[in-house]
């Protein structure tokens, strides 16, 4: 396809997220090698791969938790390769963590409030929020959206695992997200909680794209329109879910390999 669209995508215009030749070395170990991925705004994609395939490292490079050793990362056309994480977050990127990264000493409400405050002005405000504070209302709404209203005044350390996973998602949806990275959001959830998770993911506004790392194919393939298979730090295959599921090489590598 030699169309205008192709050329535009070649310079990164129009892509929500564009990685070009991203490589990340840990000493002599290459966790990512020459990864090139382009995701459209609003696109929902799964990243699959066995342990050590480089999925979480990919997320860490995109958010800036560790910078890539080489290559460039563009977010909505802007080169963010050398931006600190908080600058990327303020531009609409969000992520969740595989192992819940919450604030155990604070209440559920305060956790979500911090997430709302982090992407708006007044992070250093010395004034307590009042009854009609807009961000408190936004936090209330988010707490309700992830079904945690009943426990919103409890400290996070006292929550059950499933509730912590839901809070993890709420923190990533604060403010005006444009693109979200979900790192195994279903890990350790019960079947009911999984159904709730799928509902939350599928009911996100259409303009919010995401990449999801998920081992549970039932969850992953129901909430995405495209799939990237990774293997040994490289992009191994890209396609729509049906193609990937029926691809013999992929089955050999991943689906067949011990997966029930």
């Amino acid at each position, binding site marked *: 396809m030699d169309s205008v669209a192709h050329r535009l995508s070649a310079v990164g215009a129009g892509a929500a997220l564009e990685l070009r030749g991203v490589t990340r070395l840990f000493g002599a170990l290459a966790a990512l090698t020459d990864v090139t991925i382009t995701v459209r*705004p609003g696109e929902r994609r799964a990243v699959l791969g066995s342990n050590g395939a480089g999925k979480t490292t990919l997320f860490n490079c995109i*958010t800036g*938790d560790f910078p890539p050793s080489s290559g460039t990362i563009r977010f*909505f056309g802007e080169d963010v390769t050398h931006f*600190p*994480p*908080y600058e990327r*977050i*303020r531009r*609409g990127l*969000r*992520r969740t*963590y595989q192992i819940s*990264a*919450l*604030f*155990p*000493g*604070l209440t559920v409400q*305060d*956790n979500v*409030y*911090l*997430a709302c*405050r*982090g*992407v708006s002005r*007044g*992070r*250093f*405000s*010395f*004034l*307590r*929020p*009042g*009854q009609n504070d807009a961000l408190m*209302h*936004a936090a*209330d*709404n*988010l*707490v*309700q*959206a992830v079904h945690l*209203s009943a426990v919103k005044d*409890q*400290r996070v*350390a*006292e929550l059950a695992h499933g509730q912590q996973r839901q809070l993890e998602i709420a*923190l990533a*949806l604060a*403010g*005006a*997200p*444009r693109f979200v990275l979900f790192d195994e959001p279903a890990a350790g959830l019960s079947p009911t909680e999984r159904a709730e998770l799928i509902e939350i993911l599928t009911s*996100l*506004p259409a*303009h*919010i794209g995401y990449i999801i790392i998920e081992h549970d194919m039932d969850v992953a393939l129901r909430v995405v329109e495209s799939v990237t298979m990774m293997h040994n730090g490289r992009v191994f295959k890209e396609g729509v879910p049906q193609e990937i599921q029926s691809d013999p090489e992929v089955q050999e590598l991943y689906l067949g390999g011990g997966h029930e």
Partner: protein
Amino acid sequence: MSLAHDSRITVRPAALAQRPARIWPEINHPAAWIVAVILLIMPLIANGFFLIEIFASTLILGTMALSLMFLAGYGGMVSLMQLTIAGFSAYMVAVFGVSGNANISLGWPWWLAVPMALALATAFGTLGGALAVRTEGIYTIMITLAIGAAFYYFTNQNWAIFNGHTGINTVATPHFWGVNWRADIPFYYIVLAVAALCYFAVEYLSRAPFGLALQGVRDNPRRMAALGFNVNAHRVAAYAFASFIAALAGVLQVWNYRQISPGSVSVGACIDVLIIAVVGGITRPIGPFIGALIFVLLRTFALDFLVRIGLDGNRFRFLIGLGFLAIVFWSSDGVIGLWQRWRQSRRPAANRPGGGHGHG
């Protein structure tokens, strides 16, 4: 891009549960009112010795320890330089103001010297903080201790500004409206007002965005960055605020003793502030004041007690050390933690609030 504009996650409007307004600190406990009244009428019940040597000293040391509590309890940063910042502020009051060392002091009136001292000490502490935030845990302790030790040796050896090991003596204290503000009763009220102001400021800030974010940085700095916060900028701002509190305490300190010398900023004194904060408890702003009261009582009365049981009276630090060990062993959140657990154990299990953590 217009995407950002209309992309807020909108859910059904929340049925807003009535939450107590967060505007003012909750002072609803009868015990808090009793303590407040006792502190206010103290000059009626206590003589000059108790008023100054016990209560004013407690409040001054407590305010210094409060600045550490703010950094350590809310920010997870154990800074051993809080006394150094207070000492720097005390020196600056003596250097810019009026003292017996006319060759050093510039002779400014107190209302110029004090703001100058506060500004310089806050800048000094912020600068030290900017160095310290590049490190974590034990390295923060080491770098702030190094700053404290360097300042101690510098004051010992510098004669042009700090007057070497003799320090600066007969520092003038404020007189205005016909009142000698260093007389016992007026001075007690000044100290009480400053300590109360700092206490309520820290208490208030703990629920404001700045304080909440600081507690977020304590719990999980990496996630804070992933929520859009510039973690290091937040930490440096916390140092600036804590430095200002320590600087206020330093002004009171130099007015109290009317002199300042390297002995007041020694490494041992730096560590005393840590002990005071830890013994009292670093989870709440009241902890440092309780710790300071215990410290001052021991410092003042342990001597008599030790002599009576036939030991060297200078061993009061031995008692403090034992108390410190006991606290570290049995209650990681200090005396207030012990007290909280004792109260919870007396309550029937069903009534216990979840965790009883209070405001964080």
